[in-house]
């Protein structure tokens, strides 16, 4: 472990002192980590979560190392369409997380803020803008972003187009969920397919997209089964495992490998012990570094996160026969789009199916759409008799997330919903 820490420190220092030379070292670290994961699995987590972690590391390490193999996206960019052209989608939010593996997030955030970027902006976006501006993060040839859920998307991509010369397609996602909206977005998706045809020189095959969507439907069904199983069986994972699952469901959805993995997880989970602790439905991002949360949720038989809205943010079947309309509908009916009543309803559906003991809503610094509706959701959950805790913090910047305050709130809440031990009495 010491060597790993030393290498991380070394790379961090290099990125700050000689940004132009640090990228190869960053990639080397990612590749080494990919092999380390394959050879030395984390014994504290289940095999399924371990494979997931390894799959995500490979996606990042392999894409970044191969020129022309990926586009920058945001987490809601339709990766299915990119897959048709053999392109991976690396979302800027996820790349920021991977940069924080080198403890570079604070340096990048300060860098962006010193350029004039607002301190109140989402820390994922600040990390990424700072990473590119400081000359550390290297760029692909193209980007794809949407207006879904986050004001920062269009602005970050537009800024990077001007500063780093990365052109992008912007998908305007309408608010209302109706036929007009679907047609409007489906046409934009067709244009994107045309743009990618031109850029890659590969012909778009609609049949391929249909196939990807069929796989996606299968995968989503497996995921729902997995959530059901997590209610019943103990399945050791860490806070970050849920984040990997979110990344997988957004960047690798539609691939056979993710489908196979979920099938494996559904088999593996049934071999585990019955879960008797408290079942938590997690809303929004997870601060994977937060000590107190790790203490309570990492491989814990007392508290298990059984589902999260960021993993399953769209719940219905896609009509593979009309792939562009299906993709457009998926994006428009995402629970992060439209009114909060829509979001509350979908989370309500999830709660009705999974019967969690409690809901925890993490308000990530800078995320106005999540924070702004948290109180409405709490009221909705109260109607259903499910206690909900709102935690304020930051998904990536430790300086905005005070562990002592989170610990106190979390412990009081867990005491309130009754610990497993006490209830057993």
């Amino acid at each position, binding site marked *: 472990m010491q060597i790993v820490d030393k290498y991380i420190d070394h790379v961090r220092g290099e990125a700050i002192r000689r940004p132009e030379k640090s990228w190869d070292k960053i990639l080397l670290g990612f590749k080494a980590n990919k092999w380390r994961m394959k050879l030395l699995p984390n014994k504290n987590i289940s095999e399924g979560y371990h494979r997931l972690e390894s799959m995500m590391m490979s996606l990042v390490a392999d894409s970044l190392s191969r020129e022309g193999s990926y586009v920058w996206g945001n987490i809601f960019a339709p990766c299915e369409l990119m897959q048709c052209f053999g392109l991976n989608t690396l979302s800027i939010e996820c790349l920021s997380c991977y940069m924080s593996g080198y403890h570079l997030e604070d340096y990048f955030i300060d860098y962006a803020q010193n350029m*004039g970027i607002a301190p109140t902006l989402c820390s994922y976006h600040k990390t990424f803008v700072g990473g590119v501006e400081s000359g550390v993060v290297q760029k692909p040839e193209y980007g794809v972003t949407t207006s879904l859920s986050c004001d920062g998307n269009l602005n970050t991509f537009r800024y990077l187009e001007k500063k780093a010369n990365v052109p992008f397609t912007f998908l305007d996602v309408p608010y209302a969920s109706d036929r007009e909206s679907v047609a409007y977005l489906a046409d934009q998706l067709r244009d994107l397919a045309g743009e990618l045809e031109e850029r890659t020189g590969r012909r778009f095959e609609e049949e391929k997209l249909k196939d990807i969507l069929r796989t996606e439907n299968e995968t989503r069904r497996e995921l729902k089964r997995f959530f059901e199983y997590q209610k019943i069986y103990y399945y050791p994972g860490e806070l970050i495992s849920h984040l990997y699952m979110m990344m997988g469901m957004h960047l690798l959805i539609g691939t056979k490998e993710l489908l196979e993995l979920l099938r494996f997880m559904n088999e593996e989970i049934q071999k585990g012990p019955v879960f008797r602790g408290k079942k938590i439905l997690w809303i929004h991002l997870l601060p994977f570094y937060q000590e107190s949360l790790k203490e309570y949720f990492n491989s814990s038989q007392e508290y298990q996160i059984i589902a999260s809205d960021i993993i399953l943010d769209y719940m219905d079947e896609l009509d593979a026969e009309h792939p562009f309309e299906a993709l457009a509908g998926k994006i428009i009916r995402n629970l992060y789009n439209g009114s909060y009543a829509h979001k509350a309803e979908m989370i309500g559906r999830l709660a009705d199916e999974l019967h969690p003991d409690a809901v925890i809503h993490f308000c990530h610094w800078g995320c106005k759409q999540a924070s702004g509706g948290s109180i409405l959701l709490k009221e909705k959950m109260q109607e259903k008799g499910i206690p909900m805790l709102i935690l304020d913090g930051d998904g990536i910047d430790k300086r905005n997330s005070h562990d002592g305050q989170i610990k106190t709130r979390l412990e009081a809440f867990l005491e309130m919903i009754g610990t497993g031990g006490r209830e057993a009495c």
Partner: protein
Amino acid sequence: MLGYICKYAPIEVFQSMGVEMKRIEPEVTNFTQADMKMHPNICSFAKGVLEDVLAGDYEGVILTTCCDSIRRLYDVLTEELPDKFIYILDTPRITKDAGITLYEKRIWKMIRTYEAFSGKHFEEERLAELLKTRQKEQAISLKEHALNIGIVGARANENIARILEEKGANVAFDITCTGLRRKYLLEPDYVMTGYTRGLLSQFPCMRMEAAAGRDELIEKYARSVDGIIYHTVQFCDNYSYEYAWLKKVLPGPMLQLETDYTKQSYGQVLTRIEAFLESLAPGKEKRRPAPKGEKKDMYVMGIDSGSTSTNAVIMDGERKIVASAVVRTGAKSGESAQKILGEILGKAGLAREEIAWIVSTGYGRVSIDFADENVTEISCHGRGAHYFNPKVRTILDIGGQDSKAIHLSEAGEVTDFVMNDKCAAGTGRFLEMIARTLEIDVDELGPVALQSTEDIEITSMCSVFAESEVISLIANNKEKADIAWGVCRAIAGKAYSLMKRVGLEETFMMTGGVAKNPGVVRAVEEKIQSRLYICPEPEIVGAAGAALYALDKMQA
């Protein structure tokens, strides 16, 4: 009466139905309802609108899907005011035909919903009649013999233009959402389509896809004026991208001005605008030094009324400091000023009548009734720093409740500045809080910090969080010296980002009470990897600058 906020809202549709439309311009004293029903970290404008609508007498509100905060505002308003007409109009970000078609359909749907709600009836002909009167072209209006200022960025409230006018500056253009004029080309056969096209082809805001035209227009407009005020709203982040970009590409002076739509922020806005105008003001020739030997027995005074200390300087006609004084500011800045007036006159052995001109500066500058004139602390610090050391290009001033970085030209003119007066972290108050927690005197904090042997990171950026972090460090038996050093480094980190934003050019000078703290000084020096010039009495730099302004007056 219906309220609206966004320039893309089709207000003429409602006006043609005889509905009074009011653009909501909140100016509130608190965000009590918003903090309870939304979240504190939502855009201040959205919070202000919520307070205003809940308190006001609107029939309803027309919102657009302009940003995340407004979308959530809609959710809260529909929940809170179920009987009112709270409508969110799905506004496309694409202005091409697909966007126009979609928007027109949305507008029709809204009209039908309002007709059902109100019983009123919409007629396209009446809209056409009305549109003939809305033909104002966007233009630049420059004035001679005045500073011409352009306002760009997020929606600017009326105070900004009012302050500019009161200070004699001319608002040459205001291309924020609130300053734009509306113009429509009437298409008689397709009234609604033409109207929708007109709405969407207004000067684009940052939420629109095609903001490229924005850059060109801003750059063109910016070249015609003396300075740009770039307005941002607290917790609205979209415009900071453009600010960061324009800062690099615009050649002229630009002030970033953040507001939060509260009445309390008026003073902060005023200081920044005044300082900006002072830095642009023509007539630099007034700054020539007095010819030697002339008016030796002429005296002027500068008085700097800060939150923690009130400082004064008396200068003679040869720019020599005759006397200076520093007293703690009490609850009333006027009283401290009276006190210091007596003290400094005593020190100088002068009578009040012998002081030819008095310039006040600082946070309490307007409360000093015996001053003849007031100038902002930014300009005075710049002036004072140049007086003490003409090589200085970057000033770091950390006072009791604010901190600022100022960049000076070779001639000692302020070319850029940034201020932090919104949060206690990185100010003298913060050091006082921590000293109290460590149970040491604030004057000891610096010397104690220098004895540190271990680097501890204080990671929290907010002073309240930082204080609890310090408490946990104490609980973990960390050494006082190490904690104190950690705190000094945290302040240095804040100071560094301020200094970096004005360019980080050498020579550096530190002023204000905190410059007497050797711990902070060393931490800042380590961070900037350069020495800080500190004059013998760092608290009187602003007052000395004010005295120099007074001297200008006498010698003009």
